[in-house]
Structures are given as structure tokens and as C-alpha cells.
């Protein structure tokens, strides 16, 4: 049973029993008993105990930034227990690439995950690891809030927008063929179901986070049928959520206006490729991938929060990495789980440390090590308790 429906199922059952008017159906009883026995994903977050989260450190600088985040969470006394897993692709029976079964089982159990950067080889080799994860857990929405960080100056100030990108299909369906030698076709897939899902999610996100408008980004003048379908679904979702303003804009107009005045945008929803380019463009506006959080929402309540920068093999192991991206993604995760107090504390400590300018990693313009930066944040968090 999804969400809090189990509670209403039991209440209805009680009401029927107490009123004595209608006959109690056996089916209803078994539903209610099943819901109570099994428990639901959301029910877990209401327990005052420790929440287990799957942690995927990743490659390159992944392990060191994961350790930094774990240390900060410990200092903040967040009720999180980490379960580390490795997701290097293995070839299953039948030659199909998949993630290791123990990682899959852990994610299915915990439902919430935090992921570091994973390596992706260019042109041939095994399929992209990130794509594989997305397909395995049906992570259909990639949410990237881009907010200007005070204390880290970029040419763009007052950026406050969210890009919501369809994550499973579109141009990244991975279906390519060589028709004749020298002619390659790549298929962009747009389905009604996926477009509807992402459009609904975008409006719900806007509603839950008090955002005023949603803009659909498309290129329907050229790709009439595919982006036309996506646009139709967005319009239908807009009809269902009349309290949120809906506009549609061409991809090139969005790019043009984004670099001139990013303050005019609020929530942007779009198919896969445009989302990839635009979300990275927005990340560039606030200071790059090293400071941008990101979350992937999937069906069945699964959510994986990740840092979107690369593995940075040139600085791996040298204690030079910047854990801000993974930390802000972890904060996004805390908010998703409802632990707003801890989220606010850690986020404030992080921003204060960056604003202070005394302890900054090399990519933010300072000279400190990763461990010093982490320690500074831990100290601030402890002072806040």
C-alpha cells in the first residue's frame, strides 16, 4: 500500500466495526493486517530509531568525500546508519550487464541511497554505470536545485532554480544502429507514460517546495511528434495543478535567456538530453559540479542522492577533494527523509565555512586540504548543538 494509505485503511476498518452497520469485508481486514505487518517505506521514517542508508562511495575521490560526509553526519549526531556497497558492473547470466546483487538488495531494503562519482568509459566498453543504476531502480526524475552560494562569487548572482530532468528515456535510450557503413542512427524514445510521470512529479515538487512556476523546455518546432507528446503531457499535468503557473519555452530561448538573466527561471522540466545540458549549464552558473547537489527519485519510494562531478583521478588520494557536492546532496537526502533540523544545521555549517573563506579547498580558491575543510565544518556543527 502506498504512502500513508495503511493508516486510513485501518481507520476505515475500525469505523465500520464500531458502527456495526455494514458488513466487514474479509478483504479489507487482510489488507489492514498486511499493511500493519509489512510496514511501509514511509512508516520507517517516522520511527525514532536509526535510519539505514546505502552508501556507494564510488571511484577516484569518491571514498575520501564519503568519509568526509560520514564524519560530518557523526558530528551532527544525525540518526543515519551507513551500509557501504560497491556497484561495479558485472556480467550476469545471458551476457546482460547488471549491478551486483548485494547492492541491489541493500537499496531495495533501505530505499534511500547516497552515491559518490562513478567512472564512465568513452565510446565502447561496458555501459555507463550511472545509466545502469537508473535503469535498475527506475530512477525517473533527476532533480538539481541550483542556488547561488554566498561566499563563492560567480559572475551570476541570485540564481535560484530547479531543473527536473526525465532520467530514463529520451536521447539516452542507448538504442543505436549502424544502418550502412558510414551511416549511424540513434533513436530518441519518448513515451506517454514516462512523460506523464515526470510532468506530474515536476508539479508536485513545485507544490511541495513552494515554487511558483514550472517551465517545460522542448524543441517541438523540429521534433514535432516526440517533443509534442512530452509537451501535451506537461499541459495535461498543468491542468491538474492549477495553483502552479505553467509556461513552455524553446530550448534555444532558454539557453539564451539563462546566460543573460537566470533569475527569471523557477522550475524547469524537460526530457533527458536537454536536461543533461541545461542542468550542467545551471551548475556552471553557481560555481560548477563541485558544489551542486543532485537527487534521483524513482518509483516505489526509492531515492538516490549523488554528487554529479567526475571521479577526478588526478587528485584522488591526495586529500585535495571538495566534499561540498556530496554533502549538499546528503542534506537534500535528509530533507527528503523529513529530518529538516539536522539538514538545516549541516547546510548552515557548510555555507558558513565557505563564506568565512579561511578554510577552502583548492577548487573554491583556497589552499586547505579536504580533511581540514571537513574538520572546520564538524567544529561548526558541534558548536551549533
Amino acid at each position, binding site marked *: 500500500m502506498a504512502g500513508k494509505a495503511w493508516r486510513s485503511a485501518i481507520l476505515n476498518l475500525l469505523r465500520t466495526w464500531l458502527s456495526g452497520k455494514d458488513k466487514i469485508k474479509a478483504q479489507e481486514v487482510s489488507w489492514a493486517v498486511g499493511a500493519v505487518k509489512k510496514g511501509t517505506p514511509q512508516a520507517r521514517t517516522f520511527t525514532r530509531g536509526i535510519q539505514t542508508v546505502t552508501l556507494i562511495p564510488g571511484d577516484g575521490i569518491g571514498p575520501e568525500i564519503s568519509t568526509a560526509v560520514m564524519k560530518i553526519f557523526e558530528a551532527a549526531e544525525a540518526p543515519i546508519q551507513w551500509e557501504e556497497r560497491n556497484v561495479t558492473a558485472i556480467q550476469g547470466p545471458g551476457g546482460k550487464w547488471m549491478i551486483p546483487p548485494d547492492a541491489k538488495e541493500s537499496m531495495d531494503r533501505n530505499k534511500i541511497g547516497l552515491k559518490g562519482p562513478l567512472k564512465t568509459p568513452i565510446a565502447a566498453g561496458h555501459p555507463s554505470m550511472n545509466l545502469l543504476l537508473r535503469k535498475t531502480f527506475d530512477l525517473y526524475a533527476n532533480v538539481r536545485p541550483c542556488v547561488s552560494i554566498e561566499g563563492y562569487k560567480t559572475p551570476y548572482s541570485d540564481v535560484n532554480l530547479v531543473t527536473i530532468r526525465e532520467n530514463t528515456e529520451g536521447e539516452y535510450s542507448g538504442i543505436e544502429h549502424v544502418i550502412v557503413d558510414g551511416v*549511424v*542512427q540513434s533513436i530518441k524514445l519518448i*513515451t506517454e507514460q514516462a512523460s506523464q510521470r515526470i510532468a506530474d512529479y515536476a508539479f508536485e515538487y513545485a507544490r511541495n517546495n513552494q515554487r511558483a512556476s514550472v517551465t517545460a523546455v522542448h524543441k517541438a518546432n523540429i521534433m514535432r511528434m516526440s517533443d509534442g507528446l512530452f509537451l501535451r503531457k506537461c499541459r495535461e499535468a498543468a491542468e491538474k495543478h492549477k495553483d502552479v503557473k505553467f509556461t513552455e519555452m524553446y530550448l534555444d530561448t532558454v539557453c539564451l535567456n539563462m546566460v543573460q538573466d537566470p533569475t527569471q527561471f523557477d522550475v524547469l522540466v524537460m526530457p533527458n538530453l536537454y536536461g543533461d*545540458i541545461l542542468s550542467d549549464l545551471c551548475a*556552471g552558473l553557481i560555481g560548477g559540479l563541485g558544489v551542486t547537489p543532485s537527487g534521483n527519485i524513482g518509483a516505489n519510494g526509492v531515492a538516490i542522492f549523488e554528487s554529479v562531478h567526475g571521479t577526478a583521478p588526478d587528485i584522488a588520494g591526495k586529500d585535495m577533494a571538495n566534499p561540498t557536492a556530496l554533502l549538499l546532496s546528503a542534506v537534500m537526502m535528509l530533507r527528503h527523509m523529513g529530518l529538516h533540523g539536522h539538514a538545516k544545521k549541516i547546510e548552515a555549517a557548510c555555507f558558513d565555512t565557505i563564506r568565512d573563506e579561511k578554510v577552502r579547498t583548492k577548487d573554491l580558491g583556497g589552499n586547505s586540504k579536504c580533511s581540514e575543510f571537513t574538520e572546520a565544518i564538524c567544529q561548526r556543527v558541534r558548536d551549533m548543538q
Partner: protein
Amino acid sequence: MTFLTQNPTVTSLWEFLKNKDQIPQRVFTPPPARYGGRHTVTLIPGDGIGPELAHHVRELFRFCCVPVDFEVVNVDSSMASEDDINNAIMAIRRNGVALKGNIETNHNLPPSYKSRNSLLRTTLDLYANVMHCQSLPGVRTRHKNIDIMIIRENTEGEYSSLEHENVPGVVECLKIITKTKSLRIADYAFRAARATGRRRVTAVHKANIMKLADGLFLECCKEVASGYPEISFDSMIVDNTTMQLVSRPQQFDVMVMPNLYGNVVSNVCAGLVGGPGLVPGANYGEDYAVFETGTRNTGKSIANHNTANPTAMLLASCLLLDHVKLHAYASMIRRAILSTITETRLHTADLGGQGSTSEVVQSIMNAVQSTGPQTLSI
């Protein structure tokens, strides 16, 4: 074709193309449309701000006594039949050169209605879209000293308009990348870099995800790069490119890419140097050339308000003059435009000023009058 079958050492199409002397040369090259020393150029006003800007171009050319006659062909975007655009295409074939405003595409119409602009580009095989984004003096932007030449494949890629719905609710759109066209655009990019003395060409792609399609494009670029040793070649993934463009755009020199990424990158660069009203664009094919504003905006909301920025269209007309080898006129008009840009009092609304289109054009005409001997006094 017998060359290919008889010679077993020919391994790639590139090699085949290099040995051009072994195949019969093309005997027919269309002559320039020059009658009595005057060029005839097709003018397609288009929609939105197109007609008023086309009018200003003609006004300026008449004032400067440029030996160019415009053959105006109107394309009605609301008509379902393709007669209008076919007439325009025939006119361009006749004259060889055109100046064009953007023709609006209503994206709520069914897929049988193809984008008129796209039709024009593919029928005339205008395979290279060249946009030169330069920081202009007098225009306030967040980034300074930008000088990027963007060369975008204009006829294939994601803009093939090949879509179908095999199963209801599932739409497939095909992105086609061919070796011949990728080699052609890469060769164009390197030749242009060599001709303008530029040192570095960057290929923009997404080959980590679209391994075959963009992988082929990248391979073709690398192959062509090997023939130009004095120009350094590197590649960058498109999302990283957009990020680098908004943080450090000065690092880029020449960029070559397939169609859709070209759309994104050219719009980002246009935004970085000051907006859609400042950058001209050119579409070059083997035999024809069409000039327009770089970002191809219709500007419906500001049509007929006398607030549009004429700079992009006027600079496009200068590119046209350069193409038909009227270099003196081109530099004269270009100098006048650049001197007007520095005058912030006359900036139009898109640059944050309050000047009107006609004021800007009048100022350009005054600048032309004060500099050259070839002008008429009003």
C-alpha cells in the same frame, strides 16, 4: 567509381576524396548572379521582426549605394502547402545568395507540416552554419574578451525530422549521423580555422552516451585533424562545454559540432556576448549561401514596435557583401555599425537602453556619411 574497385589501397572515403584528380571534375559551377555589375540577392523577410529589419537593410544599402538588388520572396508560414518555400528555394538557386528572416513554425501543427527554415537548409544542402561570437566594445556583459567561432552541422543529426509512432504512446525520433557529412563539416571547420589564422579546434560531442553516433562524428573530426598539423584539436563533452562557457568562455577558439549541440552552444555564446540582437549567422553550402541572424529568433512579441536591435541583421548583410566580394562596402558598413554600438545612448531595449530601431539605423547612416567618400549627402 571504377577508381574505388580497381585500387585496393583506398581504405576510407577520405582517401577517396583526396584523390580527386582520378575522378571526373565537376564541369558545372553556377555563375554568380551579376548583371551589369550589380548583384541580385534573394531577400526572404520572414515573420515577426523580419520584415522591418529587411526594410532597414534595403534602406541602408540604398543610402550607401551598394550595387545589390534584392529579389523579395515572401513565405507565408500559415499556409499548409509548400509552394511558397519552394519558390524561395528556386529564387536562391537562381541567385546563389540570400538574406533571410526567420520563418515561424507553429509547433502545434501536425508533423506533416515541416519547419520551413529546416526545409530550406536541407534542400539547398547548406551544411555549415557559422556563427562568430565576439565581445563588442560598448556592450556590457559578464564575460569579456570572448572570440569564438561556432561551426555547426546544419543538415542532419537530430534535425532529420524522421519520427514515427509504432506503438500508441511511444514515439521514436531518429538522429542520423553520416560519415560523409561529418567529414565535410570537420573539413570545413579546419579550413576556416586555417583561413582565419586560428590555432585550436574543439569538437563538442556526447560520445560517452551516444557511443556510435557521436563516436562516428568524433572519429571523423580526428581523421580530418591529422591533415592540419598546425591546428591543435581537442574534444569536449557538451555538458562540460556549457559549464565551461559560463565560467571561462575565453578558452574556446573554434568549435565544431553536430546540429542540436550547435543550437545550444550557439545560443549560449550569443547570450554571453550580449544577446540575440548582436550576432549574425551564415549558412554555407557547396553552391549557395544564406545569411540571417545567428540565433534565428522570430521576435513575435516585439514585432512592429520599432524596438528590435538591427545590429544582427545588418552585420549579416555585411557578411553577405563579403561573400559576393564587395569588401569595401562591407568594411564601411561594419565600421559604422561598430561605432554606433559604442554609443550606449542608442542601445535598444535588449541591451538595456531606450533607443529605437530607426534611431540606430539613422546613426549608422550618419556614421557612414562622415567616413567614406562614396556616400550621398541626404
